[in-house]
């Protein structure tokens, strides 16, 4: 598979003489079309990494290539064309006065003529199911709805890569589920590469691949099943366990030995049924 993003030996320091860089010699690649989750506890450097990818933070040393373009101060706007970002706080990234103005914001910046903008904005709002809210102001929307509007803004500009920088961390469980379902759907229809940066483990389990980052360093890189089977080590890294792993730990304490490899909720349910019907 083709690599859409390549990161080589990336190091970032907020202050030039900082002895502990926020990112320390990070290297990885992102394949076109995959869903990559980057997990780590608070302050591990996840958001710094996300902002570096979009050129929002000028990194100290290293090299980032997005879609064949090397990220430099000259190419930063070209790179941003290819990347759409959704941030954590739904309120603080809502630029427009109403939903449709906000969706149009990215298009206005690309100097798209108005006649082209109108159908595109309308289609993008319909795509995320916000048509009846098109004229609404942000103060009358819920957090989940605001994040959906942010997604509509991404749909309108149709980038290659979507970076979710803890985009669901301020939403309620229902808003989070809806948002992730929508991203999954968009990824298939729009051929997006998704990088989701999160400390929500359940969000990471739906990824194709997981990068674990700790104190600015990449400590692990594998499929979710491999990462989440590590139980105790995740806790040491300051991460939470997925629900099924917590259940297994509780079973072990009670002397029941579940299988060691990672299982999703459905597989776990199946295993429980089987072991119960065998006895």
């Amino acid at each position, binding site marked *: 598979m083709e690599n859409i993003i390549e990161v080589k030996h990336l190091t970032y320091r907020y202050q030039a003489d900082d002895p502990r860089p926020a990112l320390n010699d990070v290297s990885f690649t992102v394949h076109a079309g995959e869903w990559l989750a980057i997990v780590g506890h608070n302050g591990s450097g996840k958001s710094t990494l996300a*902002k570096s990818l*979009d050129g*929002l933070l000028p990194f100290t040393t290293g090299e980032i290539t997005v879609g064949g373009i090397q990220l430099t101060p000259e190419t930063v*706007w070209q790179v*941003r*064309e290819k*990347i*759409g*970002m959704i*941030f954590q*706080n739904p*309120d*603080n*990234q*809502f*630029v*427009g*006065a*109403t939903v*449709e*103005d906000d969706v*149009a*914001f*990215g*298009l*206005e*910046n*690309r*100097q*798209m*003529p*108005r006649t082209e*903008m*109108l159908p595109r*904005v309308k289609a993008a709002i319909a795509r995320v199911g916000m048509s009846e809210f098109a004229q609404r*102001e*942000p*103060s009358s929307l819920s957090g989940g709805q605001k994040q959906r509007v942010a997604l509509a*803004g991404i749909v309108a*500009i149709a980038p290659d890569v979507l970076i979710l920088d803890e985009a669901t961390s301020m939403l309620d469980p229902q808003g989070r589920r809806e948002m992730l379902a929508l991203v999954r759907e968009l990824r298939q229809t729009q051929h997006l590469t998704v990088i989701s940066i999160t400390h929500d483990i359940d969000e990471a389990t739906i990824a194709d691949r997981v990068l674990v980052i700790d104190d600015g360093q990449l400590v692990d890189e594998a499929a979710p099943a491999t990462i989440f089977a590590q139980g105790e080590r995740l806790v040491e890294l300051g991460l939470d366990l997925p629900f099924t792993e917590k259940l297994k730990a509780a079973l072990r304490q009670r002397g029941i030995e579940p299988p060691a490899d990672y299982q999703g909720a459905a597989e776990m349910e199946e295993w429980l049924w089987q072991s119960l019907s065998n006895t």
Partner: protein
Amino acid sequence: MSNFIFGRYLPLNSVVHRLDPRAKLLLSFCYIGLVFMANNLVSYLIIIAFTLGSILASKISLGFFLKGIRPLIWLIVFTVVLQLLFSPVGGHVYFHWAFVNITQFGLVNSGYIFIRFLLIIMMSTLLTLSTQPLDIATGLASLMKPLRWVRVPVDTLAMMLSIALRFVPTLMDEANKIMNAQRARGVDFGEGGLLKQAKSLIPLMVPLFMSAFNRAEDLSTAMEARGYQDSEHRSQYRILTWQRRDTITWIIFVVAFAAILATRRW
């Protein structure tokens, strides 16, 4: 705050509501000039008819306008009484004591001033009641465009105005939340002497400032990530269209204006 009508928006569907905000803004400015042009009974009758006509066309009940005047009533009474008591001698003198003169001239003039106040407040209330703040901002930005020739950064100002308006309710919510949070920790707002009241505002203002900085930081990052470079090199999604009803309204206004100039005592 809730019975303060001036500056609020009342969503209704009327001709006045559907007018182009630029037409309405310009009209309100010119109207104020027009009010000061009228100086006799006939010209005042014309302008009162024009104002009442606009209010009727807006479908907003007259009660709203009277409520809008209420907070300003003391200012009006004060000015009118001052004009009444201390006007220069002219016409028939009804009452004279020391330097206080109540004359025919003064009586008529204070009547005029009273009507002027009323009309200007009513018209500006009509403007804000019938136009969404967002439309007022777009209209102002569009009217400011000629200032580009004297190098005023009109697009940047328009962007600032639109962001400021969009964040007003968000920051109001935030201020409320901070106030309640501080109340829960024992701060008494609006109690005690002036100095104590001013001091009690600090636990509201400082966190509000801090959060405004954080918001600004987040917003600028988000704007940059969405390709915002500077406000000049952008296309426009929201545009205003001048329609036939705007032209008709202006024709009516110009006719009224001409009638007032014709009947005015020069």
